[in-house]
């Protein structure tokens, strides 16, 4: 106990020097936490933007379609699956798609694209990209010869509203077919890559053109065929749980003749987003470690100065019988206390500034355009990152301990008689 009290009092023998170190530690922890919250917020914003625009929170398709996306690999019992999604409390909304790999042709050229055959009302509930119509309007229904293109593709093909385009694709029998569509809308997508590669057409019309439904089914109101279903849940970061629950409920009710259905989370649908999340967590801790490592050199220097100034005193302590273990404990305690005084201030400042900015957001006017091109908003809302606080405390503890070792060893090597001669 006395060692800790001595250590505490020792760090206040040179208050200004200690305050500088404590201040540096607070600032380091604060800036580190704020950067973590900022980058996390930015990443969340990017992830949510991608999920909202094109990926969705979860995706269901047949196992066959996942392995080989053939025209005929549709979901067999779409209605039953839709009912299950409606009944699931985690699922907020969903939309079915017919997917058609096509070649689009217009007056000035052609391009390979993926045509999503959608029910416009449902698609709008799941994806924001179809709400960002920069010119014209989105599809009106499941039937019609309308098409909606991305801005980049419209520019590339030099087409505008009311122009016609031709889609060429394979039907269910493997025959190549062409269909004429009229451009009714141009959307502003998350990225130019998405805008260039994805177009929207009415689900029933494209299904009919592909030979997936007949003319009677074409006139039915409900959608009866789809290659995939995209759905949203309450919290996209808890999609794993929701997905498992959905899959279990489906497996419970299936029989041996049922089709194999695959339930995928957004992390599986778009692994780059999931990997980015995992890499980010590790990178942020590494980033924090670098900040704290720099801090620990400051602490090490302070402690070395303290040892140098107190050579005589340390010699006396050894002379009167303070053993090496206690001398070591004294130096380590001083170092750790020095770090730990700054730590709560840094954590508090970091937490408060994240709490405030997570509500107000920070607008980056100078990079607004660049952000928009990436599909991000210029106002970034940092996230509060309490999950990092404990690892930070651990890091500070470890690095303070490590930075105390060299000064402590220097102290232990002192010779009592020679040290007491030092003026």
């Amino acid at each position: 106990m006395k060692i800790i009290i001595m250590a505490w009092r020792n760090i206040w023998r040179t208050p200004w020097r200690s305050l500088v170190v404590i201040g540096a530690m607070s600032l380091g922890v604060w800036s580190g936490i704020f950067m973590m919250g900022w980058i996390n917020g930015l990443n969340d914003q990017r992830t949510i933007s991608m999920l909202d625009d094109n990926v969705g929170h979860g995706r269901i398709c047949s196992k066959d379609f996942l392995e080989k996306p053939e025209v005929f690999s549709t979901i067999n019992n779409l209605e039953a699956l839709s009912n299950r999604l409606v009944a699931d409390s985690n699922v907020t909304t969903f939309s079915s798609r017919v997917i058609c790999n096509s070649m689009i042709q217009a007056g000035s050229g052609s391009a390979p694209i993926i045509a999503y055959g959608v029910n416009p009302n449902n698609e709008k509930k799941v994806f924001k990209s179809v709400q960002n119509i920069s010119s014209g309007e989105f599809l009106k229904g499941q039937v019609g010869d309308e098409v909606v293109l991305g801005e980049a593709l419209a520019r590339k093909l030099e087409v505008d509203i009311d122009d016609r385009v031709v889609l060429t694709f394979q039907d269910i029998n493997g025959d190549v077919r062409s269909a004429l569509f009229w451009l009714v809308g141009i959307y502003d997508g998350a990225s130019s890559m998405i805008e260039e590669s994805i177009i929207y057409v009415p689900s029933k019309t494209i299904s009919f053109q592909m030979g997936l439904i007949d003319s009677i089914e074409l006139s039915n109101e409900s959608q009866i065929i789809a290659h995939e279903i995209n759905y949203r849940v309450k919290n996209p970061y808890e999609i794993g749980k929701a997905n498992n629950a959905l899959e279990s409920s489906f497996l419970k009710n299936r029989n041996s003749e049922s089709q194999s259905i695959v339930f995928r989370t957004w992390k599986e649908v778009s692994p780059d987003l999931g990997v980015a999340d995992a890499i980010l967590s590790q990178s942020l801790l590494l980033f924090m470690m670098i900040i704290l490592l720099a801090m620990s050199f400051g602490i090490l220097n302070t402690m070395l100065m303290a040892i140098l100034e107190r050579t005589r005193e340390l010699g006396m302590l050894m002379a009167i019988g303070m053993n090496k273990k206690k001398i070591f404990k004294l130096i380590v305690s001083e170092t750790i206390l020095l770090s730990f005084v700054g730590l709560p201030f840094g954590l508090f400042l970091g937490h408060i500034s994240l709490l405030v900015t997570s509500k107000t957001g920070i607008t980056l006017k100078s990079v607004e355009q660049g952000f928009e091109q990436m599909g991000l908003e210029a106002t970034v809302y940092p996230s509060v990152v309490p999950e990092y606080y404990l690892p930070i405390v651990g890091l500070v503890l470890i690095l303070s301990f490590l930075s105390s070792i060299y000064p402590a060893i220097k102290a232990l090597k002192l010779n009592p008689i020679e040290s007491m001669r030092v003026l």
Partner: protein
Amino acid sequence: MSLIRLENLNKIYASQAGNVHAINNISSDFKAGEFTSIVGPSGCGKTTLLNAIGGLDKPNSGKIWIDNTDITSMGDKVLIDFRLRNIGFVFQAYNLIPVLTALENTTFILELQGAEKKVRNERGMELLKAVGLEDKANSRPNQLSGGQQQRVAVARALASRPRFVLADEPTANLDSKSTETLLDIMAELNSKEGTTFIFSTHDQRVIDRARRIICLEDGRIK
């Protein structure tokens, strides 16, 4: 029976001018309860002899027996513990711990020995009373005069009831009044608690109070 026995003790320091025989074949005995002054001019080896007896410095040859234990053959770790439990030190420059109060300084060695707080504080207050600093128990060293600091240092040296106290020129930095007070206190504690005191000094006032005087010259007992 001797408390401390020195046998053919030698300590040689190498210097540019050649080897310096700081202690030259000294043999002597110190009995329990002695109040001894080691006197001699500067550089005669007083401090070196005290350091050797206190286990702070190893002689080149010879043996030091304390209560029939040869401390010259002890390892560092054992020696530190031996010092803690058997020897009290009073240094010329007081060497109190600046961040501790007078009472905390006094009881510091007891704490290192693992004594309970109540026992420590009782003993600490008893000694501070004995050295006339009861009212300064909560003062830090920088709030005390030189004489008062040295009295606290004496109290600290005696707190654990060591077998003997080594005091290296304890009055060198004190004025006459403080010197007299300190000597009175040490003499009283010597008679009351039976603590053995060995001083190194060339202060005539200390020499006058000693009951045994060992004169050193060029590292030898004269």
